[in-house]
């Protein structure tokens, strides 16, 4: 045992200084949500919509001015198929994975960005919790990809504790309910009971595309459409799965310690 401590110490610091400094966030090469360039879109083409399994891209049904496509990043699983089938580059691969937002509408692509989401909330969280946050995770039927990345938060590279954020076993001690999965019929009651067992004030984060909208598992005979209509959500983080850095950004967003970067379905300039 002492030998482990000794070798551990000789290895130096493994933890990144990110996000406090511009250090490596560990996501080199990770592809995020495809960027949408509606002006490149060709008429009479629906290749992207046909290739989108979760229905994040739909061809506009009403003949109105502006974009031909409805693009909802809350449904996107970042499979990149749209970027491969589009003949005109209207969808292009990107590294935009930090997609945490406070309002669901901010995940829908819009020509003009609506601003002023619930800014008041962050002030309240800050005054209530200071810099600390205790998180209760509930898996409501995920594929285990989200859990794999959530577990990575406690590895030495990300070391979530350094940010004052902790996972807690009991909902009684939890400030935030972090939900993954599309909510299966069998997990619904357990999920709602966990939420009810939390003291107020309490917050909810829908983590991963399944929890935001149901993703590829939405509906069917066993699943709901994520937390929609089941619990009130304070932060939405689509991603399939959201990587550890995206999770950290979304947690800091909830705490008012990081700005929201996505507005109207894209990076705010």
């Amino acid at each position: 045992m002492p030998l482990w401590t000794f070798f551990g110490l000789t290895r130096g610091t493994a933890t990144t200084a990110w996000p406090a400094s511009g250090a490596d966030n560990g996501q080199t090469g990770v592809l995020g949500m495809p960027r949408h360039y509606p002006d490149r879109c060709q008429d009479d083409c629906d290749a992207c919509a046909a290739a989108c399994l979760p229905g994040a891209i739909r061809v506009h049904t009403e003949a109105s001015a502006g974009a031909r496509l409805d693009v909802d990043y809350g449904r996107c699983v970042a499979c990149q198929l749209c970027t491969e089938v589009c003949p005109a580059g209207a969808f292009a691969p990107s590294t935009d994975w930090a997609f945490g937002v406070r309002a669901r509408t901010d995940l829908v692509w819009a020509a003009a960005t609506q601003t002023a989401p619930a800014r008041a909330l962050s002030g309240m969280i800050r005054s209530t919790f200071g810099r600390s946050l205790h998180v209760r995770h509930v898996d409501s039927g995920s594929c285990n990809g989200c859990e794999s990345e959530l577990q990575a938060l406690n590895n030495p590279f990300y070391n979530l504790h350094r940010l004052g954020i902790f996972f807690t076993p009991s909902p009684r001690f939890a400030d935030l309910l972090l939900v993954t999965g599309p909510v299966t019929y069998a997990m619904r009651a357990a999920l709602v009971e966990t939420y009810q067992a939390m003291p107020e004030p309490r917050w909810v984060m829908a983590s991963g595309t399944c929890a935001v909208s149901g993703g590829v598992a939405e509906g069917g005979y066993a699943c709901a459409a994520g937390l929609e209509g089941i619990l009130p959500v304070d932060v939405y983080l689509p991603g399939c799965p959201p990587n550890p850095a995206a999770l950290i950004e979304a947690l800091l967003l909830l705490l008012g310690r990081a700005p929201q970067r996505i507005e109207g379905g894209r990076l705010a300039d």
Partner: protein
Amino acid sequence: MNGTEARTIAAPDLLEMCAAHMRAGGRMQMAYVWFPQAGATPEIRYLASQGANQPFALWCCRPQPGEALPSLAKISPLLGWYEREITELGGVHFDGHPEPFPLVLHEGARSTLPPLDPRYPADQPVEFEAAPWRIPELGGKDVQLLPFGPVRADVLESAQFLFFYIGEGIIHYYPRLFFKHRGMERRFQGLCPKLGTVLAERVSGVGSVAHALAYCQALEAAASCQIPERARWLRVLLAELERLYNHLHYLGYLCHTTTLKVGEAEGRLLEERAKQLNAKLTGSRLLRGIIEPGGLRRDLDSAGLSDALEALRREFADYTARLERTDSHLDRLISTGVLTRKVAVDQGATGPIERASGLDRDLRRDHPYAAYAELPMTVALREAGDACARMQVRIAEIETSFALMQRVLLLLPAGPVRTDCHPIAASEGLGWSESPRGSLYYAVHLDQNGKLARVKIKSPSFSNWRAFPFTVHDSNMMDYAINEASFGLTTAGCDR
């Protein structure tokens, strides 16, 4: 179906067929139901292995409407769960089933038709009203019942465990699974085959490559599609990268359960390094979005990967050498959660779990796919069947993975990585891969329009969850977490 010797069997002959197969040393692999036409009677298919490099035996049995089939679970216990699943999702009943209780659909769930029946509306939820469950009857002085879950401590998948215990001793253990049942097999129905890959990658997240591979190989078999040489070799690289980060994860997690804190931290860090390599190579930490029917979606740039893997291998070698010298760690693992060879065979344990109980099976060697036939394979074996043996098998498999990946990088042929894979209407195919957790099968049926009619997924965790409780009965509470970590089970893969 490709790779199989198919036979049509009449219901009364099933028992004798199965018994003869078992006597000859064969093993049943899975059973599933499918509906060749809407409204027609369903067909039950049994897949059985007949030994390395032998085709699988495939038995097709179509019961008359309302006719029950004889349950084979008494002679091949591992079929017990498959038969229960077929009853609940396909509406075919089995006579004389030793465990005639709900499994996949919980007590209180009702549907107008079996959910896999093509006539059942795709988006109609099952009706569910929580009902009392059947739990084992177990009484006696001082026996206590501890229900744990489905929301468990820390960041873990949902499942519920019932412990009947006295003091520290567990008398009986009963896992209640399928809280996470998403009906994934049904979701494939009606999809265009290419999009099915996106779904297959999301059945079990930490098995994305294995699932995509088995699914695509089933489609390629159905379409008689030969994929390019380079794609076959790169698929080996992807599959071994997946094994690497998964096995590293379980090594670190095992240290967590034996409270070897620095060992846990180092294991998790190695896993993180492996995931970061995955992202640099493919754009996805879970290696998603790269495999497709007909090869790969794009070529991979493996520049620098060989050196990065060698650096990781050295750290891994240091790490595991220390693990295997740490008495406090080994003391908790040796003789913990023993899975005997007999139980492993009967209950269908697979992957590192069966190999740690002395069963010499590995699909990569026994039924090679991708480029495995051209690569030297050492299959790690241990006899003890305890948590320590399972750790040692994983360590040895990581060593093999490193060797395989270096060889792939050295010999990687040039050329294209994709070819067109045109689905043939009304065809079917079987695909398999040795996932980090064991054998994974996809049986794929296409309809008249070339869309998916039925996709059956036999996941390794479905097999290992069935075997796991036998190592918990008559053990003790302190060992439970260690034992569970050493099994490396995923609930998502099991529940689907």
